[in-house]
C-alpha cells in the first residue's frame, strides 16, 4: 500500500467516526494548546521585561545601597563627584533621589506622586527625551534652581486643558516653575506608570525638599557595551576608596549592570514558564494514553474489518501501518487543532486581558513533533495487536 493510499484510508476511517475521533484527540488538543499557551505567556512576559529593562537606558550601570539586612545607605554627593572626576569608562552619570507620595499643587488641582531629584545626564542615560520645553542644565543644578520637569501623567492631572510650560506648581511648600515636559514612557515591567513623576534638579531636591541628604542610587552609562565589565569594576574600586573600605571588607553598595538586572528579572519568569510547560506536557502524555485506549477498543471493535482486510490480501505490515497511521493522524490532527486553539487563546489573552504573549515557531514545531511521537508510541501496541490477529479468528469474530 502506498503512503497516499494509506493516508486516505486512515483519514477516511477517522472521519467515519467524527465524534469519537474528536474526543480521542481532545487530550492531545488540550495538551498541545496548553503547552503552547503556557510558553507563549511565559516568553511574552519575559520579552516584555527585557524590553522594559533595555528601555531603562543604554549600557546602564547602577549603584544601589546593598540589599538585605545591611541596609544602611552610604551613597553621597561626594561619591558621585569622585566617580565623575576619576572614572574613565563612564560617559554619563546621575545621582537619583526619590520622594514617594509627595503632594503637588498646580493649576487648580493637586496630585500625589513621586518626585525625582536627578542631574542633567538622567535623560541621556534613561534615553528619555523631553517632549517640550527643556531639561535641567548644569547651571540649574549648581544654582539649586526651582525648576520642575513633569511626566505626562502628572501634566495631564494638574493641567488638563492648558500648556503647563511656565506655570507654577508647589511641591510640599516650595514653589517650582515648570520648564519641561517628558515624553510618554508607559508602564514598566511591574505595571507601574513611569509617567507619574516630577523631576527636579538633584541639588534642589537634596537641599530644599529633603532632610537626610542620602542618594538613593547612582546611574551611569558606560562608554561602550564592551567596556561594561571594566567600567563596573572601576566604579566598584572608586566607591570602595571613597567609602574608605579596607581590603577584604564587604562593599556597602551594590553595582549592577543592565544584563544582570535582566537576568535576575527573567530568571523567575523562565523557571515559571518551564514549570507550567512541564505540567502542560504531562497532559500531552495523558492525551497519548487516551489515544492508546481508544485504539485498543477500536482494534477489538474492528476485528472483523481486520479479518476482512486480511482475507482480501492485507499483510501484517499493512494492518500495522493502517492502525499506526490512524493513531498518528489522530494525534497530528489533535496537534493542529491544538495549535489553532493556542493561537486563538494567545491572541485573546493579548487582546482582551492585555497579557503579553509570544508564540514561538519552535514551540509549535516541538509540540507537533511531540504529538506525532505520542501517536507512534501509544499507537504501536494496539497496531501490533491488530496485525498479529489470526485471519480466521478475526473473520469469525462476532
Amino acid at each position, binding site marked *: 500500500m502506498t503512503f497516499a493510499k494509506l493516508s486516505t484510508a486512515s483519514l477516511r476511517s477517522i472521519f467515519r467516526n467524527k465524534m469519537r475521533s474528536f474526543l480521542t484527540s481532545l487530550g492531545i488538543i488540550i495538551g498541545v494548546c496548553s503547552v503552547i499557551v503556557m510558553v507563549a505567556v511565559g516568553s511574552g512576559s519575559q520579552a516584555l521585561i527585557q524590553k522594559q529593562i533595555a528601555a531603562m537606558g543604554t549600557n546602564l550601570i547602577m549603584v544601589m545601597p546593598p540589599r538585605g539586612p545591611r541596609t544602611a545607605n552610604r551613597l553621597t554627593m561626594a561619591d558621585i563627584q569622585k566617580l565623575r572626576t576619576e572614572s574613565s569608562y563612564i560617559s554619563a552619570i546621575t545621582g537619583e533621589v526619590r520622594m514617594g507620595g509627595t503632594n503637588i499643587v498646580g493649576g487648580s488641582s493637586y496630585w500625589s506622586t513621586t518626585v525625582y531629584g536627578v542631574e542633567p545626564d538622567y535623560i541621556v542615560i534613561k534615553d528619555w527625551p523631553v517632549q517640550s520645553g527643556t531639561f535641567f542644565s548644569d547651571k540649574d543644578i549648581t544654582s539649586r534652581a526651582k525648576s520642575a520637569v513633569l511626566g505626562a501623567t502628572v501634566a495631564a492631572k494638574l493641567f488638563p486643558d492648558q500648556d503647563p510650560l511656565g506655570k507654577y506648581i508647589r511641591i510640599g511648600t516650595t514653589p517650582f516653575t515648570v520648564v519641561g515636559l517628558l515624553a510618554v514612557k508607559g508602564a514598566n515591567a511591574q505595571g507601574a506608570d513611569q509617567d507619574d513623576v516630577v523631576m527636579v534638579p538633584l541639588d534642589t531636591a537634596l537641599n530644599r525638599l529633603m532632610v537626610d541628604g542620602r542618594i538613593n542610587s547612582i546611574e551611569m552609562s558606560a562608554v561602550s557595551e564592551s567596556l561594561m565589565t571594566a567600567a563596573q569594576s572601576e566604579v566598584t574600586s572608586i566607591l570602595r576608596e571613597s567609602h574608605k573600605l579596607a581590603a577584604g571588607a564587604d562593599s556597602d553598595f551594590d553595582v549592577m549592570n543592565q544584563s544582570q538586572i535582566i537576568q535576575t528579572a527573567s530568571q523567575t519568569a523562565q523557571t515559571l514558564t518551564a514549570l507550567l510547560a512541564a505540567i502542560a506536557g504531562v497532559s500531552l502524555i495523558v492525551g497519548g494514553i487516551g489515544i492508546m485506549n481508544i485504539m485498543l477498543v477500536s482494534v477489538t471493535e474492528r476485528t472483523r474489518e481486520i479479518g*476482512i*482486510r486480511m482475507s*482480501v490480501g492485507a*499483510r501484517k505490515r499493512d494492518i500495522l501501518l493502517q492502525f499506526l497511521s490512524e493513531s498518528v493522524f489522530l494525534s497530528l490532527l489533535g496537534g493542529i487543532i491544538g495549535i489553532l486553539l493556542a493561537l486563538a487563546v494567545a491572541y485573546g489573552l493579548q487582546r482582551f486581558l492585555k497579557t503579553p504573549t509570544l508564540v514561538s515557531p519552535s514551540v509549535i514545531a516541538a509540540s507537533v513533533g511531540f504529538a506525532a511521537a505520542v501517536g507512534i508510541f501509544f499507537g504501536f501496541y494496539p497496531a501490533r495487536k491488530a496485525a498479529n490477529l489470526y485471519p480466521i479468528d478475526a473473520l469469525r469474530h462476532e
Partner: protein
Amino acid sequence: MAIIELRGIKRHYLVGEITIKAIRGIDLDVETGEFVAIMGPSGSGKSTLMNTLGCLDKPTEGSYTLDGLETSKATSDEFADIRNDKIGFVFQGFNLLSRTSALENVELPLLYDRSGSKLNPKARAKAALEEVGLGNRLDHMPNQLSGGQQQRVAIARAMVKDPAFILADEPTGNLDSEMTLEVMSLFQKLNDSGKTVVMVTHEPDVALYTKRVIAMRDGAIVSDTQVKDRRKAADDLAAWKKDHAQLAGEEAAT
C-alpha cells in the same frame, strides 16, 4: 489442468491436552471451470477444509498446490499475497466493511495489490459491480442494500482481481429464497463464463445448482458425485417471481 490439488491434507488442533483431528487426510482435485459444493453436517471438517483452501490456515500435514503453486511452505506474507491474487472470498455474513460504499468495498483487494497492475482501481471496481447488476448502487452503503445486494457486492469484490477461483462459505445461509436464487444464478453465470467456484453449503437444494457435490463426514470425504439434474437458478428465479406475482394478484382479488 487441476487448479486445486490437495494431497494427504490433515489438520489437527491441540485444545488443552486433547488433539482434535478436524481433517484426517483428504485428497482432492478441482479442475478449471468446475462448480463444486462441499457438504456435510457441522463438525464434519468442511469449515477447516474451507480455511485450508482459502490459505487462511495451514494444514498440519500434506500438500496443497494452488494454480501450480505449492503453498505448504508459504509465510504469512506469501499467504496474504496468494489470497489477494488467487482467491476470491464470499462469506455467509457478507463481510463488507460497514459505512463504506459498495465501490470502496469492491476496491479493497486492489488496494492491497502488489503486482503493480496499472489498471485504474475505481474503473475495475465499477466494472465488477456492473457485472453483478449493481451499476446503479455504487455509492450505497451496505446498510442501504438488501442481503442479496450485499452478497452481490461481496461477489463483485471476490472477482475484481480475476482470481483463480472463488471460494464461498455458505453464501446463501443468511438469505431468503428469492435472494438465494439471485445469488446462485449469479454464481452460475460466473461459472458459465469459465470461473471456478468452490462453495460450502449445508442446503441440498442449493447444491443442486452446482456441478459436483462432495460430502464430508468426520474429517474425510465420503462421497464425490457429479450433479445429474442440474438446475438453472435463473429459470427457478423467474418461476418463483411468476408464482409470487400470481399469489399477490389472488390476494388482491380477495
